[in-house]
């Protein structure tokens, strides 16, 4: 892959060369705080995982600016079709850490009823953050369909669809971008090129000159941005949403960034990522980058960080504690939500499971009668 010069906004001194991000001071600080909250959430999940209290987590270090910069461009009426490495977008829009923690524990308060693995969130409020699926690439055409539906009804909605460098090889990438191009659907495709798909480097993913160029194959603009520059990501996504809202169709944005850890808490990257590369990217830390801008704007001091860190840490810790205190979901959740109504054969299986659990003494729903 050849190098393509990515769009940058924040320069090495924190200047923005006259660019107006269009965010109030509060909003800027909310971006900053959200990045810190992502990091806090990750840190606590890692501890929970290491101590065996949750099974799994996906770290986000290094890509916080991409998540938050992109989220900041979206309205509450927009839809987000996220990957499993995007929850900063949910936090930005006001999803509560405790609602995420319920999912991490898969407990009775989890809005997915403990059916999904950790980090596979679903939210409908305060923004549509569509149920995360493990199979890579499947959500891309769904984003196109949802955007198409809104367009048909004349609603002001843009779908932000986020995926990784690995995701560009998937079937869903090809059909989604192709359909979106033909339909001029209001979608922003955000490819987070974080260098790796688990242990496979981006160079093994494609021979193309980066990922943004793939837009040419679908008749839409392709843009490369510095994914560690929150304002650059925001700028690119704002422009793409404006085009989408104006009926000009989709955009493919490649955010160049780097996954500063393993793929998940079960993965050790030291076997395949050279240490020097980590060292190199650590210098480009997206939070520090944003701090230079905030500092240059008079909004930041080291104390401010410490204060906010304490705040988000407390919030996330409390969330973890609350979620941990909630028991597992009741047995009937295994059998509900397969269909709108429970068919007879599933009901019978549920009843049998209840009978057995009652006999074994591990039924959680009392009487042993299938309650639904």
């Amino acid at each position, binding site marked *: 892959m050849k190098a393509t010069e990515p769009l940058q906004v924040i320069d090495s001194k924190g200047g923005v060369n006259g660019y107006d991000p269009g965010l109030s001071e509060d909003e800027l600080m909310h971006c900053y705080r959200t990045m810190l909250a992502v990091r806090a959430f990750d840190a606590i999940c890692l501890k929970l995982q290491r101590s065996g209290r949750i099974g799994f987590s996906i770290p986000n270090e290094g890509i916080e600016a991409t998540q938050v910069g992109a989220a900041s461009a979206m309205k509450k009426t927009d839809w987000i079709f996220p990957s499993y490495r995007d929850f900063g977008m949910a936090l930005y829009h006001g999803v509560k850490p405790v609602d995420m923690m319920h999912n991490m524990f898969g407990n009775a308060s989890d809005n997915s009823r403990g059916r999904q693995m950790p980090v596979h969130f679903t939210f409908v409020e305060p923004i549509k953050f569509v149920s995360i699926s493990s199979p890579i690439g499947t959500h891309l055409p769904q984003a196109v369909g949802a955007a198409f539906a809104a367009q048909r009804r004349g609603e002001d909605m843009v779908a932000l669809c986020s995926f990784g460098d690995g995701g560009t090889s998937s*079937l869903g990438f090809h059909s989604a971008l192709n359909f979106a191009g033909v339909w001029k659907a209001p979608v922003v495709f955000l490819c987070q090129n974080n260098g790796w798909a688990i242990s496979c480097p981006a160079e093994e993913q494609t021979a193309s000159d980066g990922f943004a160029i793939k837009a040419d194959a679908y008749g839409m603009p392709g843009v490369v941005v510095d994914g560690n520059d929150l304002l650059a990501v925001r700028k690119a996504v704002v422009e793409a949403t404006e085009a989408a809202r104006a009926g000009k169709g989709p955009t493919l944005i490649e955010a160049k960034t780097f996954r500063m850890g393993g793929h998940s808490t079960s993965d050790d990257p030291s076997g395949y990522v050279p240490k020097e590369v980590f060292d190199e990217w650590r210098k480009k830390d997206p939070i520090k980058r944003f701090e230079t801008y905030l500092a240059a704007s008079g909004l930041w001091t080291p104390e401010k960080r410490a204060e906010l860190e304490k705040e988000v840490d407390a919030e996330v810790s409390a969330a973890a504690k609350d979620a941990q205190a909630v028991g597992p979901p009741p047995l009937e959740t295994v059998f509900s939500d397969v269909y709108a109504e429970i068919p007879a054969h599933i009901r019978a299986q549920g009843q049998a499971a209840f009978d057995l659990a009652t006999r074994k003494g591990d039924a959680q729903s009392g009487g042993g009668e299938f309650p639904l």
Partner: protein
Amino acid sequence: MPTLTLIQAVNDGLHTSMKEDPSVHVFGEDVAKKGGVFLATENLETEFGTERCFNTPLSEDGIIGTAIGMAMNGLRPVAEIQFQDFIFPAFDQIVSEAAKLRYRSGGQYTAPMVIRTPYGGGIRGGLYHSQSGEAYFCHTPGLKVVIPSTPYDAKGLLIASIADPDPVLFLEPKALYRSVKGEVPEGHYTVDLSTTRDVREGGDVTVFCYGAMVPVCTKAAESAAEGGIETHVVDLRTLLPLDEEAVLDAVKRTGRVVVVHEAPRFCGFGAEISAMIAEHAIEYMEAPVIRVTGFDTPFPNTLEHHYMPDHRRVLDAIEHVYNF
């Protein structure tokens, strides 16, 4: 009441649903101007405009993937897959996504949609224009699988499927598209999903079938009747969720059962019927449960008439269980 072919009844069903519900959108390959390669969508583009009935790029994954997104956001997509044989590029979207969205999101997102597709042999279509893949989908919780065998049912079940809150795979027996005719009411009516239909009563032997095998089994039952064997022919109509109670009732009435489908036998849908019987009604059985099915081979071309169960194979089986 007008007399329609099965394909006309499908077209009528689409027409009726589109008229009633502006959220219904019909799309797929060649569905617009051409009206579909079998003409199921004829005139829909003309009547409802290219906004409501439109062609897509040649990607079944794209068709189903976008349909799921539309369904999530309030449209009622009715996607056509040109032949069931070409549904496999969309298998991931159907099995991993449409079928599991409600479950994995705790009901916060759902995908009410219909996938219509012609299935089965009888047109000399060889390996890739003849398959009956219902068992693949029936093994997938979260889907509904519907197969009509008469024009009346085709329209009524299709309208019910479009209104259903869950994703429905609507398999149309292409061998019957133009070969069966029947009275079909105008306008709106529905046939309930998950109900079976008694095609013919009889106290000696029970035959379970669906789709294009229904007329085959009826013919076999008529031949059997000439020989004094009275056969109850049951059209299953909805394979998933199946009306298991109706099936077991019918089994118990005769204790002699034949199950018929075109798909290969091994792990086919018939196995589930047999297994249900072996588990819940074995003490009623007077004879082995015989499956008459396609062979465990790909679908051939020139010799398809050997591959597809015909009334003679079904009659053989009826006589076998009767005389056991």
